[in-house]
C-alpha cells in the first residue's frame, strides 16, 4: 500500500522532507563545523544591535581584503570569490581574492558583493548584555575569532576569544 495515499502518510512525508531541507539551508557552515580545521582571525567591530535579530556582534576582519582593496580590483569579478589564507604570527590573514578555487592551502569561500565579501562569519549571536561587553572588548582590539574552515572553503564562526597578551 502506498503510504502517500493516506492523509497521515502525506503529512509525515512532508515533515520528513521539511526536516531534511533544514541542513541543506545551512550546509556550508554545518560542513565547516563537522569537518573543518580551526584557524584564528583578528576581528574588529561593525554594528552592535539589530532590533529584529536580538543581540549580536557584527564583525569585521582587518586581516581580510577591505572594501577599498575590492574596489580597486582590475580583474573580472564573479558571484563567488576565494580568499587564500596565510599565517601571520598567531593569526591568519587573507591574500588577494581569486575567482578560481585554490588547489591547496586554507582558503575562504565568500559571496562576492563587489564592494565587500561575505564569508558567513560576519556575526556572533549572544545575550544582549554580553553583546555590549563583547562589543566593547572587540572595539579595544583584544578579541580573535576562532573559525572552522572545511576543504571547500566553507567557514563557521565557533567562538570569540580574548587575547591574553594585549
Amino acid at each position, binding site marked *: 500500500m502506498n503510504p502517500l495515499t493516506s492523509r497521515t502518510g502525506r503529512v509525515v512525508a512532508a515533515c520528513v522532507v521539511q526536516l531534511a531541507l533544514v541542513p541543506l*539551508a545551512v550546509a556550508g557552515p554545518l560542513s565547516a563545523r563537522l569537518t573543518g580545521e580551526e584557524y584564528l582571525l583578528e576581528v574588529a567591530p561593525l554594528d552592535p544591535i539589530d532590533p529584529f535579530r536580538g543581540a549580536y556582534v557584527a564583525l569585521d576582519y582587518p586581516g581580510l581584503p577591505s572594501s577599498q582593496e575590492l574596489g580597486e580590483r582590475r580583474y573580472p569579478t564573479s558571484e563567488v570569490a576565494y580568499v587564500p589564507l596565510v599565517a601571520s604570527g598567531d593569526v591568519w590573514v587573507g591574500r588577494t581574492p581569486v575567482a578560481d578555487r585554490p588547489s591547496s592551502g586554507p582558503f575562504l569561500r565568500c559571496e562576492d558583493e563587489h564592494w565587500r565579501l*561575505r564569508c558567513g562569519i560576519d556575526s556572533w549571536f549572544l545575550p544582549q548584555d554580553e553583546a555590549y561587553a563583547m562589543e566593547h572588548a572587540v572595539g579595544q582590539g583584544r578579541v580573535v575569532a576562532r573559525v572552522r574552515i572545511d576543504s571547500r572553503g566553507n567557514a563557521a564562526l565557533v567562538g570569540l576569544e580574548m587575547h591574553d597578551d594585549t
Partner: protein
Amino acid sequence: MPAEAPEPQTDDMTQDLDPGARRVDAGRLAWLESELASWHDAGLVDDTQAQAIRSRYVAVRRFSLARLLLLLGGGFVGVGLLWLVASNLDELSPLLRFLVVTALWLGFVATAELLTRRRTQLVVGGFRLLASLAYGAVVFQAAQSLQVPAYEPALVGVWGLGALLYAYAVAGVAPLLVGVTTSTVWFVWTVFDTAEDGMGFVLPVLLAAVVAGAVSVVHAARVRPAFAAPWRDTSALMVLLGLFVAAFPDVDAEGFVWSAPLSLGVFAALTAVAAAVVLAPRARAEALAPLAGVVAGVLLVLWEPPAPVMGAVSGEGYAHAFVSVAVYVVAAGWYAVLGVLRDSSRLTYLATAALVLFTTVQSFAVFAPIITGATLFLVLGVIFLGSGFLFDRGRRHLTANLGGAPA
C-alpha cells in the same frame, strides 16, 4: 451510492478543504432557502426533498469574527515565535533551542491533524498557519545555532519550499499563503542580490507573476480549485507591483547582471505557461497575460527618457509617462475583469486600489515639478477622471466579451 459533494469553489483564503457539505455565501444560501419555500408552496418539492436539498449546503461568512480572531491569533503567535527565536533564547544551548522550536513546530502539525479528524475546520486553518510559520522558526533557529546571518535568502527559500510541501500535503490554504509569499520573496531577493538595480527587481517580480498565474490556471481547471485564488492574487499583485516600479523613469538596467536563479526563473515561467496552455486551453489568455506584463515591464525599464533639465520634462519624458499610465490602466483593467469573471471581489479591489495609487504617484512625479497650486489639482483631477473612464469602459467591454456576463 450517494454522489460525492463537489469541492468548494469559493475563493475564501481562510478556509481549508472539506469533503462534506458545499459551503456557500450566507446571502446565496438565504436566496436558496426562499426559493425552496416557493418551490414547496408550488408543490414542486415536498418537505423531505426540500430538506435534502438544503442540507447539501452550509453557510460561510467570509470574514466571521471567529475566523478573523483565529487567523490573527495564529499569525501573532507565529510571528512571536519567530521573534522569540530571533531574540535569542538566552537560557538554552543552541542545540536545545533548535530542539524546542522543532518540537513546537511538530506539535502544531500534530494538533492541526487531530483537529482535522474532529472536523473543527475553523481552528484547523489557524494551526496550519502556525505550523507553517513555526517551520520558518525552525529554519532560522538552525541558522542562528550555527551563527549563520539571518539575511541569507536561502533560509527564506527553504522555508518557502517547506511551507509549499506542507500546504499540498494537507490541502491547506493557510500554509499555501505562507509558502507562496516566502517563495516569491526568496526568488526576488536572490535575483536582486546579484543585480541591485531596477531590472534586477522588476524582472524577477514579473517572472514570479507568470509562474503564479500559470499555476493558478491549472488549479482552477484541473485540481484543487480552492488553491487557484491565492496563486491568482499573487500573480496579479506581482504584475501590478512590477509595472508600478518599471514605470518610474529613473528605473534602469545599468547594473543588471544575468544570474543562474534568473535563468531558472525564465525556464520555470515558460514551462509553467506552456503547461497551463496545454492543460487548460480555455484559460490560455489568463495564463499568457502575465507574460505580456513581463514584456511591457522590461521595455519600460529599458526605455530611459532624458532627465528633466531645470524642472522641464522633455517630450520623451511625457511620452514615457503616458505610455506607462496606458500600460498600467490595461493591466489593472485586466485584473479587475478577471476578478469579475472569477467571482473574486478581492482581485477587483486590488486592481482598483493599485490603479489609484499608480495614477497618483505618476501624476505627482510628472506634473508636480512643473505645475503648482490649483492648476496641479485640476490637471490631476482630469487625469483621474480620464483613467477612471477608460478603466470602467475597458472593464465593461472585456467582461461582456469574455464572460457573457452583464457589465
